[in-house]
């Protein structure tokens, strides 16, 4: 439960000693309540007060780390249910599922398929970060461990789905150093699974037949001292899974129920087996609403392109605009003689403009310089997309590489034409349309006229 400044003030020594840097204890308490200072910065707090405060000011949802090195991911740690309230912090991670019930050829095909999707989108690497290894019915320790070893060969962080403590122990023996998740505790086996997971030092996944059982098992594990958990909210069907996942997150963040303050695992293979388009729809839905690890049958480019784009959008900080890297982006097979087009580095503008430019089929060099991540008019008004900034970027970076001396500027900054002509001798400045949707016709007309 977040405390307000007055409640914190009651626990301070009220000496106004100023040692924390604040003029009064009241001022200090207000800053702590806002999160601007930490309670430990007061040297005179009693231990009891500190203990009760750190409990009360602890975040409602734990931050859980899985994997190691490049494969280390942070899950949870969210503070809000809707991104506009502050921001979401830990992206959901996608897992492709393997199972002992698959034949060798299927497993090999999956293992060959997974690394194929690996690309960069606005500075972020997009790939299936996790591999989910399911221990199917009847599999023994040797069979499961063999599959886990194969999966580990990919170098992706693993999530082991195994409810048998002995088999889990054997599997962890071959992969525990890479810090996988062991998803296997339930009401019937949580003590044994807890011992296996704590001994191996890995995160333990908890499930239950309904929310009450999940809650009780989680509380029991916490009592055993294990707070390194994720909650498998997958239910019997899609409806139950969605209800579980939303209610667990909501109980933690809105109702401050810390027992449910853990990241989630949503297994789409269980609730939409074999229906890839439905899995695609659900992956999108659980990316929006509260999945932390989302398990799917496959991750090809068809799923990845929209899904990773969506995740990147939803997990941007509302206070920081998405920016693309400054540079020259040749489109439609452009070479050094192709016309130059410029716009701002605001990701939304870039995507809309580059999409239309590609649709036109006209070869051109799209030049992006640093305009502060703002839209055309905003960055122009802020002086970040000006005659000076455009011309100096063109002189330094474009002139050495591109021979064309024709530059198309956005119609909304037509006023820059004269300024640019003065600052870029030898260049012909062409004013483009005001809206991106008019670009295709505009470029085709220019091409038909022989102007570009």
């Amino acid at each position, binding site marked *: 439960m977040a405390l307000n400044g007055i409640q914190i003030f009651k626990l301070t020594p009220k000496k106004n000693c100023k040692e924390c840097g604040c003029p009064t204890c009241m001022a200090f308490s207000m800053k702590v309540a806002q999160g601007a200072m930490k309670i430990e910065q007061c040297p005179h707090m009693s231990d009891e007060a500190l203990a009760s405060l750190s409990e009360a000011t602890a975040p409602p949802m734990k931050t859980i780390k899985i994997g190691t090195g490049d494969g280390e991911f942070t899950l949870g740690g969210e503070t809000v249910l809707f991104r506009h309230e502050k921001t979401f912090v830990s992206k959901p991670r996608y897992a492709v599922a393997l199972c002992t019930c698959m034949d060798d050829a299927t497993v090999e095909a999956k293992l060959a398929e997974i690394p194929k999707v690996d690309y960069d989108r606005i500075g972020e690497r997009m790939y299936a970060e996790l591999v989910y290894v399911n221990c199917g019915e009847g599999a023994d320790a040797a069979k499961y461990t063999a599959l886990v070893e194969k999966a580990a060969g990919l170098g992706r962080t693993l999530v082991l789905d195994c409810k048998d403590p002995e088999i889990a122990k054997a599997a962890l023996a071959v992969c525990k150093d890479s810090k996988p998740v062991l998803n296997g505790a339930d009401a019937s086996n949580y003590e044994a699974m807890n011992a296996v997971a704590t001994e191996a030092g890995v995160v333990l996944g908890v499930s239950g037949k309904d929310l009450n059982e999940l809650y009780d098992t989680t509380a029991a594990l916490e009592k055993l001292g294990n707070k390194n958990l994720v909650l498998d909210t997958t239910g019997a069907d899609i409806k139950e899974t969605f*209800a579980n996942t939303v209610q667990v997150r909501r109980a933690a963040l809105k109702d401050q129920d810390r027992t449910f303050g853990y990241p989630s695992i949503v297994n789409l293979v269980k609730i939409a087996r074999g229906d890839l388009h439905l899995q695609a729809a659900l992956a999108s839905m659980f990316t929006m609403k509260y999945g932390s690890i989302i398990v799917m049958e496959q991750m090809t480019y068809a799923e990845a392109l929209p899904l990773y784009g969506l995740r990147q959008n939803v997990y941007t900080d509302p206070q920081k605009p998405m920016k693309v890297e400054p540079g020259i982006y040749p489109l439609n097979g452009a070479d050094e003689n192709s016309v130059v087009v410029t716009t701002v580095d605001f990701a939304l503008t870039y*995507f809309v403009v580059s999409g239309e430019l590609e649709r036109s089929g006209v070869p051109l060099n799209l030049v992006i310089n640093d305009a502060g991540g703002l839209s055309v008019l905003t960055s122009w008004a802020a002086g970040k997309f000006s005659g000076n900034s455009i011309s100096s970027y063109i002189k330094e970076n474009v002139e050495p590489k591109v021979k064309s001396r024709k530059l198309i500027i956005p119609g909304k900054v037509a006023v820059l034409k004269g300024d640019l002509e003065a600052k870029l001798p030898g260049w012909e400045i062409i004013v483009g349309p005001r809206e991106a949707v008019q670009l295709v016709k505009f470029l085709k007309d220019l091409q038909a006229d022989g102007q570009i």
Partner: protein
Amino acid sequence: MPFNQKLQKFNAKINTVTIGSGDKTVTIGGDSTYPFYSFDAPSENAPKIGVEISDMGLENIVSEGIKAYYDGASTIGEMAKKAAAMEGADFVALILEGGDPNGVNKSVDELIAVVKEVADAIDAPLVVEGCKNVEKDAELLPKVAEALQGRNVLILSEKEENYKAIGAAAGLAYDQIVGAESAVDINLAKQLNVVTTQLGVNAQKIVMNIGSAAAGYGYEYVVSTMDRIKGAALSQNDNMLQMPIITPVSAETWGVKEATASEKDMPEWGPEEERGIDMEVMTAAADLAAGSDAVILRHPEAVAAISRMIKALA
């Protein structure tokens, strides 16, 4: 100690709007929870799916699957019949993209003939989308509203620049449902609803299109705008934001390069058909998760998949 389940009950709800006339109607809105939170309170109406056809026929369609579905339909009327019969379809959406002055620039009379042909061919609920050009729509959509009198169609859409012409014709003169389109901003959405009702249009006969984007293309604005609109409508009982939301998905998703780039150009991306379907499916699912009460789609497999998702969650 079992889980202390706390339900989130609101004393407000989204307006219900019924589109269509006679036996075949479709009703959207009515819920008093966040989308698909049926554990808080039972859902009154599950979200609905419209199938989009164009006055341009299949001319601008790249997807082989969509073309194959309409194979054998030689007129727009026959296409409309097939669209209405698509598995998972609740209504038909006719987009008059050929009217765009920057494109083919069909005349209003020509387009009205198309509208009439579609309306005569089907009795399914109908949504008519303009060409997106504000001047042309201001001329075209009032004529559409007039031509379809008695059919109780949804006219998409009036914007800030042309709401007087379209809102008055659709909402007052010809008693249709007014689609109010704004650009992904809660304040603009509310403002348009306010001025439209000030014209005298019944608030219960307005459906919002709050703007849309394909997944990955600034979609965060769509999410936050819808989250905030649903929040204001339910928790603050803001009756100028309680109109149900319709989102045309396909017009956005089938234009982005993830859907259009051919496999020849991007061999590692695989078949464009699958990419197009998943872009449509995932964007639609995200729209529904954020708060759309209806989505407009094109591909039969996308319509079927989203229909399965809605059934599973409702």
